[in-house]
């Protein structure tokens, strides 16, 4: 028996290599590359003479939108091997593969008077097939930018699997004048700085506007009366009115709830500032925090069940999360420095904030339990982040130092890449990113 066992052992050992090959080769890869995806947008076909200019404009806008994300890189037309000038023609995939374009966007535009239709298709060059079906949009020629943004959104979402953010607007405070006599007025623009329109005059200070979830109204703090008050403004009609809040000396820092029916804000009384809620429909008020400290800058979670806000109850500004109906808040920020202006991501997973530490300001993100804090920017004064509708990009205000300092708006991807300014004439601050437009 012993001898047999010994021989068995030997056999097992000798056939060890054979045993080891009973499963597939397993590898773990943890390092990849982060590289913009090359794409090509041949000029959209103009289906009639009047469409020539706008077809070219829309093609360029689509390319700009995608390249501007930092996730895509345009392969210039000068490199094209085959020209895709007709929307209906078949795609010669090898020609596009040869120039390393992995995505191909083609389109066609038809104009009749002030009406316009835009068609587009997206091709996955690597797989040699169309990605998703063709789409057609209809609109006015004046709204060509929105059409271009919609095409870009469709391409973006099909490739990345997430919704886009190009057909959206941002409300902000347009600034002019020196630091000790700053003229401020509310303004709204496309996310890329185009189509700027003023909503108020510069007669009094306006601060920190916030879009409603549907993008039809704007809440903001106004000093018209000499005391901070909350106004709501209708974007389309530009009409505005003051909101009746709970009794208090000053109300500021207002935000909409996710259904647009309620407003949460800070109310100051007797030296103390707390967070309150008012129902716009019923007029009912309720108090959400009761602490002898400054509580402000609240922000709802996407599902509306929780609120994140800043409070200095611990001695310095920190971030807290509590239930939307009030209750015991729990602190989520624990790093060095001070944290403020928290905003909950539309994806629900992150909170963006302004952090002050060692004389510098940063825009940062952390998970809703406070972990994985990451700083995305650093400068003399960065503050007030706002999320893009898909939770991928943050826009914020950066102010430069010194007597001649001015404010401007910047955007950055949540990975920290692709920091760039938003092209606006003049000073700008306090951005609030509205929703994707229907």
């Amino acid at each position: 028996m012993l001898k047999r066992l010994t021989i068995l052992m030997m056999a097992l050992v000798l056939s060890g290599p054979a045993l080891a090959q009973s499963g597939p080769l397993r590898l773990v890869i943890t390092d990849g590359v982060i590289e913009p995806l090359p794409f090509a947008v041949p000029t959209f076909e103009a289906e009639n003479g009047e469409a020539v200019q706008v077809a070219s404009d829309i093609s360029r806008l689509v390319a700009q939108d995608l390249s501007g994300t930092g996730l895509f890189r345009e392969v210039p037309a000068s490199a094209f091997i085959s020209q895709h000038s007709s929307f209906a023609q078949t795609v010669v995939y090898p020609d596009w593969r040869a120039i390393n374009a992995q995505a191909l966007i083609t389109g066609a535009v038809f104009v009749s008077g002030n009406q316009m239709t835009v068609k587009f298709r997206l091709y996955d060059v690597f797989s040699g097939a169309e990605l998703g079906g063709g789409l057609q949009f209809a609109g006015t020629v004046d709204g060509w930018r929105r059409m271009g943004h919609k095409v870009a959104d469709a391409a973006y979402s099909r490739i990345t699997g997430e919704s886009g953010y190009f057909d959206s607007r941002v409300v902000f405070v347009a600034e002019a004048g020196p630091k000790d006599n700053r003229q401020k007025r509310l303004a709204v623009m496309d996310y890329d700085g185009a189509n700027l329109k003023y909503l108020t005059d510069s007669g009094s200070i306006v601060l920190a506007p916030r879009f409603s979830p549907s993008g039809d109204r704007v809440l903001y703090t106004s000093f018209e009366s000499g005391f901070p008050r909350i106004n709501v403004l209708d974007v389309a009609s530009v009409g505005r009115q003051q909101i009746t809040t709970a009794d208090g000396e000053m109300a500021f820092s207002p935000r909409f709830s996710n259904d647009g029916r309620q407003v949460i804000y800070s109310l100051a009384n007797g030296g103390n500032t707390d967070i309150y809620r008012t129902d716009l429909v019923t007029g009912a008020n309720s108090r959400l925090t009761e602490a002898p400290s400054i509580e402000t800058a609240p922000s709802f979670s996407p599902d509306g069940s929780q609120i994140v806000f800043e409070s200095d109850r611990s001695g310095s500004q920190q971030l807290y999360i509590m239930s939307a109906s009030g209750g015991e808040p729990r602190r989520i920020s624990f790093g060095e420095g001070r944290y403020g202006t928290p905003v909950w991501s539309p994806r629900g997973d992150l909170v963006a904030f302004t952090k002050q530490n060692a004389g510098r300001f940063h825009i940062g993100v952390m998970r809703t339990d406070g972990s994985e804090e990451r700083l995305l920017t650093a400068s003399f004064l960065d503050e007030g982040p706002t999320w893009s509708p898909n939770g991928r990009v943050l826009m914020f205000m950066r102010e430069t130092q010194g007597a001649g300092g001015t404010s401007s708006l910047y955007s950055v991807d949540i990975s920290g890449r692709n920091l760039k300014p938003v092209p606006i004439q003049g000073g700008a601050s306090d951005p609030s990113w509205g929703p994707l437009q229907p």
Partner: protein
Amino acid sequence: MDRAGKHVQSTGAKVSAIGHAVLIGWLILGWGLDSEPLDFEITPVSVVSGEEYAQMVAATTPQPDTAQPEAPPAPVEDARPPAPVEDAAPVETPPPAPAEPPAEETPPPAAPTPPEAPAEVSDSAPVEPVPPSPVETAAPELTVSPRPQPRPAQRIAPEAVAPPPPDAAIADTVQEAVVPDETVAAEVAEPAIEATAPEETATEIAIADEEPSGAPTRSPRPAARPNRPTPAAEPAPQTPATTTTASSDNAATDTAATDAAVEAALADALAATSSPNVAAGPPMSGSEKEGFRVAVNACWNVDPGSQAARVTMTVGFKLLPDGRVDGDVRQVSATGGDAGATEIAFQAARRAILRCQSGGYKLPADKYDQWKEVEITFDPSGMRLR
């Protein structure tokens, strides 16, 4: 030795002592253990055209040197193609003036290159699209000039790479020939094949607002080795059928204890081991696996801000003996995301494998049995926070 000394009387001990001495002596002296250094071609760093690479790939023998092998880094930029050949010899000729402007090139490179060499290198401005020079000699350790912090490159990869020469083929397979010193330690050693100029990369995402400066920390090593006679060239490995049968039987007999089973196992095992076993071979080495991993991850494009970056995806596929993927890549398992994110992660993994095979992954043919089925787990968690 002492023990051997004590029992010097016994024959067995003598034989043992002699055998030990012979073995140790052999190992020390290394007879028959030397391997010749593989031939390599030397080319200037930043200017190699596509045709040149094709030439280098095709060639399996070193090019006849047009100048000394140890020559100074021959004028990389070659507004004057013939110049390198001449200048290579008279090291002292380079005009001093042009040495100044391109600051990054002037600091003398590593030891092998004579001090005057940099001047030649810097004759024209750094990276520029110029006609290719004939294959010139340049020391492999050419561009060792100090590189400041990584600049934010468009492409982020584990290793930092300088911008490629504009004419170089940016290949999907980021294979870099192994060159001594300065290369990132994790670089592949063994299955080095043709070297292609990798795209410019940085090792990390440059934090917004940090001042980007200088070039990445490493420069490309275009020196290429000719294809060594890879296993792929050999005839297909023998079928490992018997081996696999044997292994499964052996596994079964682990639990069985009957004599009959043991007998059967013994018979099978002996049969298996007696077969040439070309297919299974010794276990895959770490560097072979590393080479495979590097080949795939160069095409694995991660979008760190996306939902898909939270998904750990395992895919499986089969390989043909020449290293190409047999059939399609299938998803084995995934954790961490919803359906949409998982689908995107799967597509990215699939692309990585299919795009980077380019003719077949370079894996040792004699171990085909070990890699004919592969499962790769793509885990982007480390990349998210970079």
